[in-house]
């Protein structure tokens, strides 16, 4: 498509923008617009769009500017909170990783001591003897603590781990 522009286009554009078209325009320019396709298109479109613009300006119902300022303020504050929250999330993840590492280290240490964590007999014997050990404990025998201590430690770690996971995921 060839881009053909008329040398009078600028003049026509200015007369429309200043509101001189058509009454206050020289007759030569009006005659030119009647004969020139490019200038005729320009007048047709510009007049239609300017009328449409005037109608739309009258129809607009803008909200109070204070509302927009307030919303922008909220958005900036939320963005700032988000920025501040990023290191906190990192700290929570670090705490979770530390607790998990402590649990693994504890389990490894107990396994090294000879406690067979992953055997069925360990748990079966443990459950059957729990009642009798509880009786021993009640009667003041500290030897019973030997079995209950790792279970209590694990339960505490699990509880703390759950709390950390909750805190870490609460934001989401």
């Amino acid at each position, binding site marked *: *498509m060839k881009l053909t522009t008329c040398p009078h286009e600028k003049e026509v554009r200015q007369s429309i923008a200043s509101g001189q078209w058509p009454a206050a325009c020289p007759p030569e320019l009006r005659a030119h617009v009647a004969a020139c396709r490019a200038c005729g298109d320009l007048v047709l479109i510009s007049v239609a769009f*300017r009328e449409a613009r005037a109608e739309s300006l009258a129809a*607009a119902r803008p909200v109070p500017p204070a*509302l927009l*300022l307030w919303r*922008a303020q909220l*958005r900036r504050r939320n963005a700032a909170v988000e920025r501040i929250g990023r290191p906190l999330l990192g700290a929570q993840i670090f705490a979770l990783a530390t607790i998990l590492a402590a649990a693994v280290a504890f389990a490894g240490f107990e396994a090294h001591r000879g406690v067979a964590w992953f055997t069925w007999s360990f748990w079966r014997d443990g459950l059957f003897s729990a009642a009798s050990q509880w009786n021993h404990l009640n009667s003041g025998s500290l030897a019973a603590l030997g079995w209950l201590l790792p279970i209590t430690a694990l339960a505490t770690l699990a509880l703390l781990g759950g709390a950390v996971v909750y805190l870490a995921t609460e934001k989401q």
Partner: protein
Amino acid sequence: MPWELTLPETLLHTSPGGLEQAAGAGACDPAMQNEAFAAFYSRSSRPLWAYLVRSSADPALADDLMQESYVRFLSAPGAPSLAADGETAARLYLFRIASNLLRDHWRRPRPASIEEVPEEFFSSRSDAAQTDSQILLEPALRQMKPRERQLLWLAHAEGYSHREIAKVMGLSSASIRLLLFRARRKIADLLRAPAATAALGRNS
């Protein structure tokens, strides 16, 4: 209802006190203080809404996008300030935000059901209230591509130069010149067609 939507009563009115209260917390750029923004807003909001409503043919969408444009304008760290860069630069930046929002809207999937089409789309169809420009221009605009509508509006309603339109649309001036030339030809033919049809009807 989200707490963000429950507004203090003072903010629901355009009172100077409410404005100061909203802007006084120091959240805005110092150059874009309450009075400067209010003045800028009063001069630019209606043209921006007109641009959005004529480009989208949806008054409700135009309302939403206009508010979002101003909020982004106020929140953007790199937005031009009225004091340093002038109102023209601020206005071009605002129109650019609005154009990007329109483009994002058009990229999203269209409404699937009739319930999702805004009511204004149907209520504005009554012929009684339509003026000449609406009768001729609206059907022609509906046949144009969204980008062509934007280009034509910026050039012929807002009176922006090719360079300014290029800034708003994020294209080169050379591309704008070619696209605008084609869009102008197309809409001129569309605008002339009903007029020619009416003239033929009168003669026969």
